[in-house]
C-alpha cells in the first residue's frame, strides 16, 4: 500500500480487497440504479475521461470507476452493475449488494428514471435498508416533462427520508445540486432518516427479535435491520460475513475513516 500523504488509506483495506484503490481520493461514492436509467451517462458526465474499467475481483462482472472533484474534495465514483433489486442471487446483484454492505461507500447515488419512478423505487427502498447515506438522482426529467409527467421531488425526499435531486444526465442539468447533496450526505451536513419498509406484524416482530443479537455479533453495524431480514431469508453469505467477523471489521474501519476524515477537514479546511 502506498504511504504518501493519504489519511484514509489505512482504513480502506476492505475497499482495496474489492479492487478499489484509494490513493488520491478522499471519499468513495457508489452509483447504483436500474438498467436503462442513464446511470452510465451520469457516470461519464461526472468523471469525464478520468475513469477506467476492469472486472470485480473474482467476478466476470465489469466495473467502471472514475474520479471527480467537488468543493475541493476528491471523490472516487464506483459504478455498480445495473440491477432491479438486491434480493435474489444473481452475480450482478451480489456485486452491488456486497459493495454497499462491505465497501461502506461515503455516499450512494441511486439513479432513477423519472418516467418509471414506481418501478425504480423498489431498488431505492432496498438500498435504503443497507445504507442511510443515500441521494436519489431522478434522471430523465426532460423526457418526463415531455410526456407530461411531473415529479414532486420534495414529496419524494420527505417520504424516502433522503435527498432527491432532479437531473438530466445527458445535458448536465441538476448535477451541481446532486453533488451538493452528495457532499451534504457524506459529510453529515444533511441528516438522513431513511424509510424502512416494515412488512407484516409477524415479520416485524421476528426482525425486532433478531436485531439485538446481530448488534451483539457485529457491534455498531448501521444496518442490523437489513441483516436480520437477510438472516431470516437464510442468506448464506450474510451468515458467513457475520460468523467470520468481516462485518465487524468493516464497521470498525468505517468509524476510524469517518474520524480521520473529519480531522483532516478540520486541519486543512477543505470545506
Amino acid at each position, binding site marked *: 500500500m502506498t504511504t504518501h500523504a493519504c489519511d484514509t488509506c489505512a482504513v480502506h483495506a476492505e475497499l482495496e480487497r474489492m479492487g478499489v484503490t484509494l490513493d488520491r481520493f478522499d471519499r468513495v461514492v457508489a452509483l447504483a440504479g436500474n*438498467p*436503462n436509467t442513464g446511470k452510465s451517462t451520469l457516470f461519464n458526465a461526472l468523471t469525464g475521461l478520468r475513469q477506467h474499467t476492469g472486472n470485480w475481483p473474482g467476478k466476470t462482472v465489469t466495473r467502471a470507476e472514475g474520479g471527480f472533484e467537488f468543493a475541493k474534495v476528491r471523490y472516487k465514483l464506483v459504478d455498480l452493475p445495473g440491477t*432491479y*433489486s438486491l*434480493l*435474489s*442471487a*444473481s*452475480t*450482478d*446483484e451480489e456485486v452491488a449488494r456486497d459493495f454497499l454492505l462491505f465497501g461502506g461507500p461515503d455516499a450512494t447515488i441511486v439513479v432513477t428514471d423519472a418516467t418509471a*419512478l*414506481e*418501478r425504480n*423505487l*423498489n431498488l*431505492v*427502498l*432496498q438500498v435504503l435498508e443497507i445504507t442511510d447515506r443515500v441521494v436519489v438522482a431522478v434522471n430523465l426529467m426532460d423526457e418526463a416533462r415531455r*410526456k*407530461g*409527467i*411531473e*415529479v*414532486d*421531488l420534495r*414529496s*419524494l425526499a420527505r*417520504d*424516502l427520508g433522503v435527498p432527491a435531486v432532479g437531473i438530466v444526465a445527458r445535458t448536465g442539468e441538476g448535477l451541481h445540486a446532486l453533488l451538493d447533496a452528495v457532499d451534504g450526505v457524506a459529510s453529515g451536513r444533511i441528516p438522513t432518516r431513511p*424509510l424502512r*419498509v*416494515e*412488512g*407484516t406484524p*409477524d*415479520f416485524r416482530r*421476528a426482525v425486532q*427479535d*433478531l436485531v439485538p*443479537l*446481530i448488534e*451483539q*455479533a*457485529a457491534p455498531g453495524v448501521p444496518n442490523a435491520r437489513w441483516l*436480520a*431480514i437477510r*438472516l*431470516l*431469508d*437464510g442468506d448464506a453469505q450474510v*451468515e458467513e460475513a*457475520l*460468523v*467470520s*467477523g468481516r462485518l*465487524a471489521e468493516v464497521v470498525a474501519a468505517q468509524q476510524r475513516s469517518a474520524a480521520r476524515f473529519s480531522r483532516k477537514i478540520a486541519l486543512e479546511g477543505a470545506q
Partner: protein
Amino acid sequence: MTTADPAYAAIRRAADLRRELSSSFRDEAVRSIYAEASRIAARAVRTEGGRRLDFDQRIDRLVTSPVFGLPIMAALLAVVFWLTIAGANVPSAMLADLLFWVGDRGADLFTAVGLPWWVTGFVWQGVYRGLAWVVSVMLPPMAIFFPLFTILEDLGYLPRVAFNLDFLFRRAGAHGKQALTMAMGFGCNAAGVIATRVIDSPRERLIAILTNNFVPCNGRFPTLIMLATIFVGASFPAAFASVAAAGAVVAIVGVGVVFTLAVSWALSRSVLRGEASAFTLELPPYRRPGILRILYTSLIDRTLFVLWRACLTAAPAGAVIWVLGNISFGGSTLDRQVAGFLDPFGRALGLDGVILLAYIIAIPANEIVVPTMLMVYMGTGQMTDVAGFDELRRVLVDEHGWTLLTAVNLMLFSLLHNPCATTILTIYKETMSARWAAFGALMPLGIAVAVTFAVATLWPF
C-alpha cells in the same frame, strides 16, 4: 474469532423464527416493498390529464391479461403454424420435384460416363438424396416460420410470453425466464440451452437446461408438420385441412409445455430441490419490426445456418443408409435386418423398427428422421420420388401399414425423445458435467418410451 458465538446465536435464532413465520413471508416482504414504492410514487408523480394509458399499456393490458393472455398466445402460435403449413406445402413439392430431377440426371450422367454402379448409387442415391430430402422438406417451412417468429420477437412480444407463463413456472419451482429460453428452444434446443445463461440461479438454470428439449426445435417441426398434415389434416375436408393440421401442431406444442412444467416441478422437488427466485422482468416498449433486420436474422442467421447444419449431417446419414441398404447379409439387406431386429420393440411403442432405426441414425440431427425413414422404407435400389404429401400418405398408409396411432406416437416420440447430439454436447459444455449431459439425454428418452408405450397400450380402449 470472538464474534463467532453471538453470530451463531443470531443465525440459530433466525432459523427458529423462519420456521415460525408463514411459508409465504418472502413473497410478503417483496410485496410490502412494492406496495410502499407504489404509495410513494403515487404521491410524488402527477401525470397530465390523469392516468392516461398510452397505446403500449393498452396493448399490454390485453396481451398480458390473466384471462386473454394465454388464449391470445395460443392463437398467435396457431396462426404462425397455419401460415407455415399452408404456405410450405406447394413449394416443398416443387422443390422436391426439381431436386430429384437433378438427381436423376446426375445419376444418368455418371452411368453414361461409365462409372461403376456403386459410385453412382453412393453419390446420387445416398449422399445426394439425403441432401435433397432435407432441403425440400425443411427449407420452405423454415423460410416461412422463421421470419414470422422473428417478427413476433422484434415486436417485443416474447417478454410478454415470459410474463404470461411466469406464474406457471414459479409454481413448478422454476424461474420465470425459463419461458424465454423455452421460446428460444423453438428455434433450436442448443440455442435454448445457451440462452439459459440469463437465469442466474444455478439450480433453476439446470432445470431450464434439462427441460428445454421438450419444446420441438425447428429440426423436429417439419416432422410434426408433415405428420399433422398427412394424418390429422387429411381426415378433415380439404378446406379445413390446414387449419386442423395447425391445431394439431399447437396441441403437440401444448403437450410439450405441459411436460416442461411437469418435469420442472418433479426436478425441483427431487434432485434440484429449492424455491423459485424472484426477478424483475422489464416489458420493453413495442417496436415497429425492421423488415431488413428480420429478413437478415431469419433467413441468413437462422434458416441458412440451420439448413447448412442439417446438410452436414444429412450427407453422411444418406451415405450410411445407402451402404446399409446395399450390403446384403444372409439374403436381405443390412438395414432391413436392423429394422427387423428393432421391430418388436418399435411395435410395443406403437411405432415400428424402421422408425426406430431412423431415430438412431438421426441422433446427430433430428432434421433427417423423416428422410431416413422414407429411404429405408422405399429401398434405395429403386428411384422412387415422393413428390408432395398425398404421395407420402399413400406410401406410408398403404405400403407400410401406418395408422393414426403410428402418427400420434411418432409425434409424441419426436416431441419427447432425447435431444440431438449438438444439444447434448451443448448441455455438457454449459454444465461442465458429463452426468448432467447424460441425464439430459436419457431422462427425455425414458419419458418418450414410457409415454408412447402407454399410449400404444391404451389405444385399443
